[in-house]
């Protein structure tokens, strides 16, 4: 093995930096999944009858479904009876100030470099923390309240804003949509709810930090975000998780609804534990994210930076139902060591003059496999639909793989669909060129990667982009990557 290959290998086999476990007392459901589990969760959360019924229907449908196998990922079968479906930190839910928050919990956030105080002081970001399934503290509620914005935990929304939840939950991702969405619908523990009233521009970035912390407890968040007519919101979601030896299942559902002239910008930085160098441990991330541009001239924009998880199965999608609506998907997916990612988007054009844009950047290192899977579907009535897709892959070393699966289903002659794809490799010649100009390999790689991802990074809100670049650097550390 040449020196460069060795460096490449060293650089791309970095251990996960955020591996630690917080010792907080847990209040768990018994292992396994039956109707009783669903009832247990619903009762724990003091939910109304209709919610329980909705969950039970999902559970009964889910029992008849089978796990999908079409994705380009390989993993041992998940035993759904060997999972704890509910775990909550034992503490009072309503807190008056940060002083009331469990100091252990605060320490965890400090380790992650996201101290709440700092967050509050520096960035003016309202942070809704989901710590093992229960929202512990919601900040900035008051400021938002003045604008009529509702931003709270899903449990609270079900109790306090039942009508809104009832109207929209499952309207974008139905209970039966897919195996994991079905599971989520039955047992979702918590998540975030957000409603932006007519004509309101949300004055701050709304942010949620998710964190999986209880061994063996799958996490099933449910997020519902409604932007009423003429409103605007930018929502940030970021995650890290502690190091674990057993696989942790994660099956979230995110639903976005944009009414006439509304705009939703949804940004994710995901850095869950990817497993060790041999792929042991690590999170299974099976997420259903979908938004509907229900109203005319509405817009939904997904931006994601995916660096973590052992397995990623995720396709943030847009249903462009309203005329002149716009869907966007900007993605950086990094896989290293033994990680596998099958991610992409679906753009469903239904309304007239709808536009979509897909920019996907896949970076593969180590022995990882990185797949882009995207569907552009233009319905018969979607006159003048436009799509542009750009899928670029960057390979580091020669043991990883990059795959692109673009699907196009076009049923309207007036539409215009473009797809571009490139594959490049950080090889010896490229690195030597940098070195010959006095630039060492590590700097070279970070310059190449940053350049490669720039178009996507530019779409992240500023404060988030900083964190995203940090994660990118850590994931591919020193990386020839």
């Amino acid at each position, binding site marked *: 093995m040449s020196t460069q290959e060795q460096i490449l290998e060293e650089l791309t086999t970095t251990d996960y930096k955020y591996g630690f476990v917080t010792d907080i007392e847990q209040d768990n459901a018994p292992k396994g999944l039956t109707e009783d589990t669903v009832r247990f969760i619903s009762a724990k959360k003091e939910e109304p009858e209709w919610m329980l019924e909705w969950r039970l229907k999902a559970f009964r449908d889910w029992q008849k479904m089978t796990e999908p196998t079409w994705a380009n990922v390989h993993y041992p079968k998940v035993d759904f009876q060997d999972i704890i479906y509910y775990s909550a930190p034992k503490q009072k839910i309503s807190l008056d100030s940060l002083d009331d928050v469990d100091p252990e919990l605060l320490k965890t956030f400090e380790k992650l470099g996201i101290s709440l105080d700092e967050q509050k002081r520096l960035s003016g970001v309202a942070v809704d923390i989901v710590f093992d399934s229960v929202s512990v503290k919601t900040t900035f509620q008051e400021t938002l309240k003045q604008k009529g914005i509702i931003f709270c935990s899903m449990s609270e929304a079900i109790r306090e804003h039942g009508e809104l939840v009832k109207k929209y939950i499952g309207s974008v991702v139905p209970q039966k949509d897919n195996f994991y969405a079905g599971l989520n619908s039955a047992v979702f523990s918590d998540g975030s709810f957000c409603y932006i009233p007519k004509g309101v521009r949300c004055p701050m970035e709304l942010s949620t930090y998710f964190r999986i912390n209880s061994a063996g407890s799958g996490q099933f968040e449910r997020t519902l975000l409604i932007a009423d007519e003429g409103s605007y919101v930018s929502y940030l979601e970021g995650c890290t998780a502690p190091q674990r030896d057993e696989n942790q299942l994660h099956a979230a559902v995110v639903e976005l609804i944009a009414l006439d002239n509304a705009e939703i910008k949804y940004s994710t930085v995901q850095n869950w534990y990817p497993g060790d160098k041999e792929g042991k441990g690590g999170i299974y991330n099976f997420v259903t994210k979908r938004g509907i541009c229900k109203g005319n001239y509405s817009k939904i924009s997904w931006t994601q930076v995916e660096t973590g998880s052992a397995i990623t199965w995720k396709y943030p999608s847009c249903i462009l139902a309203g005329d002149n609506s716009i869907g966007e998907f900007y993605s950086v997916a990094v896989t290293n060591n033994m990680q596998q990612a099958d991610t992409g988007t679906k753009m469903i054009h239904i309304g007239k003059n709808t536009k979509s844009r897909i920019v996907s950047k896949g970076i593969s290192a180590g022995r990882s496999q990185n797949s882009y899977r995207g569907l552009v579907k233009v319905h018969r009535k979607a006159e003048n639909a436009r799509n542009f897709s750009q899928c670029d892959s960057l390979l580091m070393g020669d043991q990883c793989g990059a795959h692109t699966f673009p699907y196009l289903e076009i049923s309207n002659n007036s539409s215009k669909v473009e797809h571009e794809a490139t594959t490049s490799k950080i090889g*010896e010649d490229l690195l030597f060129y940098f070195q010959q100009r006095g630039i060492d390999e590590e700097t070279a790689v970070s310059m190449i990667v940053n350049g490669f991802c720039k178009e996507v990074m530019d779409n992240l809100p500023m404060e988030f982009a900083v964190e995203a670049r940090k994660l990118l650097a850590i994931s591919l550390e020193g990386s020839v990557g």
Partner: protein
Amino acid sequence: MLQIKNLHASISSDSGAKEILKGLSLEVNAGEVHAIMGPNGTGKSTLAAVLTGKEGYDITEGTVEFEGKNLMDLSPEERAQQGLFLAFQYPVEIPGVSNANFLKAAVNEIRKSKGMDNIPPNEFLKLMREKMELVEMSKDFISRFVNHGYSGGEKKRNEIFQMAMLDPKLAILDETDSGLDIDALRIVANGVNKLRTKENAFVVITHYQRLLDYIIPDFVHVMYDGKIVKSGDKDLALELEEKGYDWIKELSNVEI
């Protein structure tokens, strides 16, 4: 400045090692321009690769000193920081990295190795504009990605431009003239000539005599089968052009 003594180097591959340089000696002093000529496959590009530290070559015998230091002890980036520059025969494309970013990083790394602070942005931009004129680059060049989608001529001009920016002590031009039309050739040669000083030196590797009409060398060396078989002044290039490389083959047979 550069002393190469009895250099033997082989290329390592799966099928074993193959010796390419077979006892090459060369001395280059400040203020000199050396041309190295010779047919394909005689080891001209290997010499450039070995001097700049590219992976995949084993030095089996001989020494190389650059400014009194053993060049082989240094990493490729250290060699560059010491003032050794290679204008590549096939410059790579770097999508996503602009010329400005790339060169700023290079300039700053070289400054850092000398214990200097980063170049102030204004000064850097001024330097870029000044050197761009030298090789007749258009203004949008600053923000274009390095070599990405450039024509062959543009890539070669960019090599000369980078050389101008980094101001090396010793520059090796590896077949910079190949694939250039006469205008590009003139621009490249003109750039080199303007950069010539008493303090720096050039090693110009070329196939054809043509480039040497523009860059007048102090010495011409003819390489064959891994070593220099004949040295002379600029007239040697003309003689070679006239007599062809068969003459060299005969020459080397006689000498062996």
